[in-house]
C-alpha cells in the first residue's frame, strides 16, 4: 500500500472574537473543558451524550444488581419493600430514558451528519441544548434519592397509585418533572435531526441512497416527535394532580384511572420502537460491512422500519389486555400486535440473508450483531405468544414479560449499541478497541444475559409475578428445578453479565492507554462516515462528497467487473482521503460555540425544583430562561468572518486557507 504524505495536522488556535454579540462575548476555547461545555459540534455533543448514557447505564445496572440480590433467595432482606419499589421504578426509568434513548442520541448525533455528508446538524445550538437538558433532567430525576426517596410507582406509574396519598414522598414529582425535561430534550433533538436529514444530505443522496442507520434514526425521530407530546400531556396531568390539587385520576371526582394507562401506552409502545430501531440501524450497517455484501433487500428494511413506525401506534392496548377493555378492543389490539410482528420478522430474514453468500469477518462488532439477530428473535417470538390476548392474561405482570422485554431490549437494543461501540470506536476516538477483550466482553455478556433472563421465562410461566419485593417458598413448587433454583440462577447470571460489561470498561481504559492509532479504514467500510479522518476533523469533510450509490464509499473503492461480477479494488481509503485533502474547500465556516444552550438548559431543573419546594425558586429559573432565550436570540448562529481575519488558518472556529 502506497504511503501517502499528508499535510501536518493544523493546531487549533484560540480565536478571540472582536465584537460582542447580543449579551455576552462568544466562548472561544478550542481546548480544555470550555471547548466541551460550550461546544455546538455534533461530534463532541455525541460523545457527551455517550458518556452520560454510559454513566446512567452503570447507575441503572447497580439498581438491577440490587434487585437480583434481593430476589436471589426467598424473603430477601437486602432491600425493604419501600426501597425495592423505588429501585425497580428507577431501574426501568434510568435504562429507558437515561441510557438507551441518550445512547441512541449519541450515535445519531455523531453519525447522522457524517453519514449524509453534512458538516453539522441543522441547529447546532439547539443540539447542545438537547444534550444539556437531558443531562440536567437525568440528574434532577435522580436527586429524589437524596431528598426523601425516589419515585416508587413503577416506570408505568399507573394512576391512582401515583397520586399524592398513595405515594406521599416527592419521588413521583421528581420523576414526572424530570421526564418533562428529558422530553424537551428529545423533542428538540427530534426536530433537529429530522430537519438535518431532510435538508442537509450531500448532493446526489436521495432518500433511497441514504445509509440504513440514518433511515432508522429518522423513523425514530418521527416517533419521538409524535410520542413525546403524549407523555408530556400525561405527565402534566400527573403533576397537576400532585402539585396543584387537580383530580384527573381521582375516581371520587368521576375520573377513570384507565385514562392514564391509555396515555402512557400510546407513548409507551412507540417508545419501545424508539429504543430498538436505532440498534436495528446499527447492525444493518455492521452486517453488510463484515459480510462484504450490501444489505439484503435495503428497500424492504427501510419500508419495514417505516411500517413499524406506523403500526407501532396501533398496538398500545396490548399492555392492557387484563385492564378490562372489553372483548372487541382486545381482539383488535391482538390482531394489530400480530401484524407488527411481520415487518419485524422481515428484518430478521433480511439480516440473515445479508450474511448468506458473504465473506464473514467475525469482529466483535459482527459478533454482537449476530447475537442481536438470534436473541432479539427469542424476544420477538415470546412477544408473539402474548399477542394472543387470552394467553397474555396469564403471562402479563409475570416474569415471563420481564424475560420478553429484556430479550428485546438487552438482546436487541443493548447488543446493537455494543456492536456500534466496537464498529465506530476507531472513527470516534481514532483507536481500535481491543478485539481479544472484545471477545471476552461479548461471550460473558451473552452467557450472562441468557442466564439472567432465560430462567425468567420459566419463573413467569410458573407463576412468579413481577414487582414483588420478596417471594415465598410456598409458591415456588417442588423438585430441584423449582422457582428458588431459577431465581438463584438469574441472580448469578446478572453478575456474569456485569463482568461482561466490566470487560468493556476495561477495554475502553486499555484502548485509551494504548498509543496505537487506528488505520484510516479499518473495516473496509461502505458508508460516508468512513470517508474522512479518524476522528473526523471538526468540519467532517474537506469536500462534501457527491453521492452516486448507496454504500458510496465502497463503490469509490471497488468496481464491479461487468462480465464476471467480481469486485475489483480501484482505490484505497488513503488515496481517496488524499484526493479529498488536495481539493479541500477553501472556505469552510463552522457554527460557533455558545454559552446559551447550557444556561437555558440549566434553568429548567431550577423551575421544576421550585414547583416541588417553592414557587420563588421557579421564578428564578424562569428569569434565567428568559435571559438565556434573549441572549440566544440576539446571537447569530455563526460568528461573522470579520472575527477571524487576523487569525491563524485552521482554527477551531473556521478555516480559511
Amino acid at each position, binding site marked *: 500500500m502506497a504511503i501517502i504524505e499528508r499535510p501536518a495536522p493544523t493546531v487549533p488556535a484560540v480565536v478571540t472574537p472582536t465584537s460582542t454579540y447580543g449579551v455576552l462575548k462568544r466562548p472561544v476555547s478550542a481546548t480544555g473543558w470550555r471547548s466541551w461545555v460550550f461546544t455546538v459540534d455534533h461530534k463532541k455533543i455525541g460523545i457527551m451524550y455517550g458518556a452520560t448514557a454510559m454513566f446512567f447505564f452503570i447507575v441503572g445496572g447497580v439498581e438491577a444488581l440490587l434487585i437480583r440480590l434481593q430476589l436471589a433467595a426467598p424473603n430477601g432482606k437486602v432491600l425493604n419493600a419501600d426501597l425495592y419499589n423505588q429501585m425497580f421504578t428507577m431501574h426501568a426509568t434510568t435504562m429507558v430514558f437515561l441510557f438507551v434513548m441518550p445512547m441512541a442520541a449519541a450515535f445519531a448525533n455523531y453519525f447522522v451528519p457524517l453519514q449524509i455528508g453534512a458538516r453539522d446538524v441543522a441547529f447546532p445550538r439547539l443540539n447542545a441544548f438537547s444534550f444539556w437538558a437531558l443531562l440536567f433532567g437525568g440528574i434532577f430525576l435522580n436527586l429524589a434519592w437524596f431528598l426523601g426517596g425516589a419515585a416508587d410507582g413503577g416506570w408505568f406509574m399507573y394512576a*391512582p397509585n401515583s397520586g399524592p*396519598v398513595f405515594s406521599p414522598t416527592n419521588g413521583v414529582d421528581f420523576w414526572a418533572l424530570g421526564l418533562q425535561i428529558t422530553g424537551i430534550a428529545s423533542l428538540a433533538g427530534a426536530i433537529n435531526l429530522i430537519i438535518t436529514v431532510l435538508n442537509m444530505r450531500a448532493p446526489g443522496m436521495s432518500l433511497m441512497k441514504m445509509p440504513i442507520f440514518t433511515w432508522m434514526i429518522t423513523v425514530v425521530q418521527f416517533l419521538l416527535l409524535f410520542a413525546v407530546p403524549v407523555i408530556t400531556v400525561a405527565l402534566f396531568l400527573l403533576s397537576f394532580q400532585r402539585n396543584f390539587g387537580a383530580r384527573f385520576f381521582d375516581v371520587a371526582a368521576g375520573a377513570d384511572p384507565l385514562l392514564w394507562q391509555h396515555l402512557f401506552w400510546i407513548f409507551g409502545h412507540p417508545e419501545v420502537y424508539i429504543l430498538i430501531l436505532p440498534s436495528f440501524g446499527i447492525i444493518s450497517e455492521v452486517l453488510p460491512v463484515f459480510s462484504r455484501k450490501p444489505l439484503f433487500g435495503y*428497500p*424492504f428494511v427501510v419500508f419495514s422500519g417505516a411500517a413499524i413506525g406506523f403500526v407501532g401506534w396501533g398496538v398500545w392496548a396490548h399492555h392492557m389486555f387484563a385492564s*378490562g377493555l372489553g372483548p372487541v378492543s382486545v381482539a383488535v389490539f*391482538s390482531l394489530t400486535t400480530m401484524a407488527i410482528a411481520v415487518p419485524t420478522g422481515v428484518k430478521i430474514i433480511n439480516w440473515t440473508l445479508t450474511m448468506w453468500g458473504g465473506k*464473514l469477518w467475525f469482529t466483535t462488532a459482527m459478533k454482537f450483531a449476530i447475537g442481536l439477530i438470534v436473541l432479539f428473535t427469542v424476544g420477538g417470538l415470546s412477544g408473539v*405468544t402474548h399477542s*394472543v390476548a387470552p394467553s397474555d392474561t396469564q403471562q402479563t405482570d409475570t416474569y415471563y414479560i420481564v424475560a420478553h422485554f429484556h430479550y428485546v431490549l438487552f438482546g436487541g437494543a443493548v447488543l446493537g449499541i455494543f456492536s456500534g461501540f466496537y464498529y465506530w470506536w476507531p472513527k470516534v476516538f481514532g483507536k481500535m478497541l481491543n478485539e481479544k477483550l472484545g471477545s471476552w466482553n461479548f461471550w460473558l455478556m451473552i452467557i450472562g444475559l441468557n442466564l439472567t433472563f432465560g430462567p425468567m421465562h420459566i419463573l413467569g410461566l410458573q407463576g412468579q409475578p413481577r414487582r414483588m419485593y420478596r*417471594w415465598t417458598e410456598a409458591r415456588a413448587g417442588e423438585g430441584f428445578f423449582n422457582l428458588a433454583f431459577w431465581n438463584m440462577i438469574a441472580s448469578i447470571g446478572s453478575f456474569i453479565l456485569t463482568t461482561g460489561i466490566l470487560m468493556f470498561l476495561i477495554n475502553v481504559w486499555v484502548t485509551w492507554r494504548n498509543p496505537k492509532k487506528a488505520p484510516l479504514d479499518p473495516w473496509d467500510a461502505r458508508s460516508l462516515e468512513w470517508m474522512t479522518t479518524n476522528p473526523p476533523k471538526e468540519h467532517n469533510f474537506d469536500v462534501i462528497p457527491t453521492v452516486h450509490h448507496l454504500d458510496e464509499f465502497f463503490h469509490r473503492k471497488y468496481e464491479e467487473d461487468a462480465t464476471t461480477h467480481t469486485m475489483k479494488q480501484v482505490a484505497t481509503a488513503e488515496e481517496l482521503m488524499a484526493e479529498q485533502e488536495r481539493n479541500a474547500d477553501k472556505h469552510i465556516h463552522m457554527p460557533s460555540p455558545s454559552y446559551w444552550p447550557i444556561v437555558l438548559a440549566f434553568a429548567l431543573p431550577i423551575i421544576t425544583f421550585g414547583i416541588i419546594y417553592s414557587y420563588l425558586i421557579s421564578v428564578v429559573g424562569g428569569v434565567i430562561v428568559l435571559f438565556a432565550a434573549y441572549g440566544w436570540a440576539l446571537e447569530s448562529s455563526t460568528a461573522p468572518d470579520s472575527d477571524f481575519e487576523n487569525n491563524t488558518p485552521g482554527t477551531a472556529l473556521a478555516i480559511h486557507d
Partner: protein
Amino acid sequence: MHKTLKSAVVVFVGSLVAASCATNAPQDTWQPKGPNAKLIDDLQQPVFAVAGIIGLIVAAAVTYTVIKYRDRGQPIPEQTHGKPALEITLTVIPALILAVVAVFTFGAIFKLAKTDDTEMIINVTGQQWWWEYDYPVQNEFGITSPIISSGQLVMPVGTKVLLRETSRDVIHSYWIPALNGKRDAVPGRVQTLRLEADEPGIYAGQCTEFCGLSHANMRMEAVALSKEDFAKWVANQQAPYVVPAKDSLAQQGETVFLNQCVRCHQVNGLMRADGTPAIAAPDENVWSGAAPNLSHLMSRNTFAGAAFDLLSKKCRDEVWGAPSNVVGAKYLAGVTEDCLNQKDLRAWLRNAPEMKPMYANPADLEISNGKYRGMPYLALSEDDINKLVAYLLTLK
C-alpha cells in the same frame, strides 16, 4: 436413521423443558384446573410450539450461514441487493401463520368474555393489600343473607362463577392461574372474570397489578369445594355469633377486641357490654374504608391478605396435599387450637406493620387525613395478645 435421530432430539428437548420446571408450582400457568384456564392453555400450547420451532429455525439458519460463509479467503462476493420474490414469500409466510393464530385467538377472547351463562356471582373488592369477597343473596346456593369474607375465595366446583371485581383505592389484579387469566380490579369500574374449577382443591393466586408498598404480600387462594361441602361452608358462614364462655380467657379477649379491634374489624353479631351491636367503622380509620370482616375467621386458612397462614405448617400441608375427595372435609374443619399458627398470628398482633409493610405510622399520615393504609401498631400487651388469640379461636 434420520428419523430416529429426529425423534431422539424431540424427546431430549421435550424432557429438558419438562425437567427444567418445578413440579407442582402452585401458580403454574401451564396446569389448568378449570375450563377457562384450559381454553387458554389449549390456545397457547400450539403457539408456544410454533414459536419454539420458528426460533430453532432462525437459530439454525444463522448458525449454518455463519459457519458456511465464514471468511476462508474467498473473493469479495457479488454485490447483490436482494431478491424481491423471495422476500415477499418470506413476508407472506409468517403473516399467514399469524392469521391462523388470530382466528383461534378471536374465538377464545369472546368465549372468555361471556357472562350470560353465569351460575353464581361473587363480588370481589381489592384494597391495599387484601381481597374482600361479598357473596350476594343467592337462594339456590343457600345464601340467604350476604356473606362477607376475605383472603380465600370459596366456591363450588363445576359451577360457572362470575367475579364482579372492583377496587376501593388503587388498581389491583385478580389472578388464580389454575382457573383463568387476570382481570384488573379498577376503582370506579366493575369488571368481570369467569372462574370455574373442575375438582375440589385449593388454587393459589397473587395480586398482579403493582399496588404499592405491600404488593408482594397481597395474595389470595381460591378454594373449590364439592357442592355438598360448599353448602356446609355457606351454612357455617351464616351461623349466628357464639358468645365466648363466661369467665373464659376468650371472653376477656372479646373485651379487648371491643376496645381495640372493632374500630375497624366487624364481627357479625358481636354485642357491646351495653347490649348494642358493635359496628365497625373502618371508613373513619382506614383510607380504603374497609378492613377484613373477621366473622368466622377460623374457617379460613390464611390471614392478612392471605400473606400468612393461620394453619401451622404441618396442618397446612395436610390440607393442601389432600386428594380432591377429602380436601373439602379437611378445609371445612377450619383452624383448631392445636393447628393454629400461633407464631405468625401473635407476631401480627404484636406489630403488624413489621410483618407486612404498610403506611401505618401515625407520624406520616398527614396526607391521608390520619387514615391508615393497613393495620397499625397497637401496642398490645402480651396479656392482651393471649386473650385475643383465645377469642379469635372462637370465631369458627
